[in-house]
C-alpha cells in the first residue's frame, strides 16, 4: 500500500482496520474525525502542531495589487489567510533519505 502511487483516506482507514482491529466503518469515521478536528482548529485561526510529524501554520497576508499576467491589467488582491506546513525534523530526515 505504501510506496509509489497515492495514499488516500481509504488507505488510512484500511491501515487502522488492520493494525487496531477497528471495523472498517469505525476506521473510516476516525480518519474523518481526525481531519475534521484539524480543519476546525485551522478554520478558527489556530495552528495545528503534531509532534513528530509537523506543524500546520497560518499566515495572514496583506492586501496587494496584482496584475493579470495576460492582459497586464492591475487587480486588487484582498488580504487573505494562507496555510503552510512545516515538517518536523523526523519527517524531513525520513523523506530526505529516500533513494
Amino acid at each position, binding site marked *: 500500500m505504501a510506496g509509489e502511487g497515492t495514499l488516500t483516506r481509504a488507505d488510512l482507514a484500511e491501515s487502522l482496520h488492520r493494525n487496531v482491529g477497528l471495523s472498517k466503518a469505525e476506521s473510516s469515521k476516525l480518519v474523518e474525525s481526525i481531519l475534521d478536528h484539524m480543519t476546525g482548529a485551522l478554520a478558527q485561526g489556530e*495552528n495545528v502542531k503534531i509532534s513528530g510529524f509537523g506543524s500546520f501554520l*497560518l499566515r495572514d497576508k496583506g492586501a496587494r495589487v496584482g496584475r493579470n499576467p495576460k492582459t497586464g491589467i492591475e487587480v486588487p488582491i484582498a488580504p487573505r489567510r494562507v496555510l503552510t506546513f512545516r515538517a518536523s525534523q523526523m519527517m*524531513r530526515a525520513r523523506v530526505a533519505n529516500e533513494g
Partner: protein
Amino acid sequence: MSRHVQQHGGMSMIRSELVDVLAQENPGLSHREIDTIVTIFFDEITKQLAEGGRVELRGFGAFSTRGRDARQGRNPRTGASVDIPSKKVPYFKPGKEMRAKLNV
C-alpha cells in the same frame, strides 16, 4: 518586494489535544487506543512520503515531496565549502475547501 506577511502567534491545537477530543467522542475506545490510532494515521503519511509517494486527502490537502538540487554549502564556523547532495523535502498543498474555510 515587500509583502505584508504575518505569522500567526495565536493559539494552537497540539497532538495531545487532538487525542483528548477524539477520546471524548469515542467512549468505546480507550485513550491509549486513540493515541495508537493517531500515531498510525500520521506514520502512514510519513511512510508514504519517505517512499516517494503522494498522499491526497480531498478537502484537506495533499502531501508530496519536492526535489532540492545538490549545492555547494559552507561550514559557517570554518568557512570550508562542503558538498550538499540533492535531497527530497516534504511539501503540503492545502485543498480548495480548506482554503475556503480559512477565508470566510
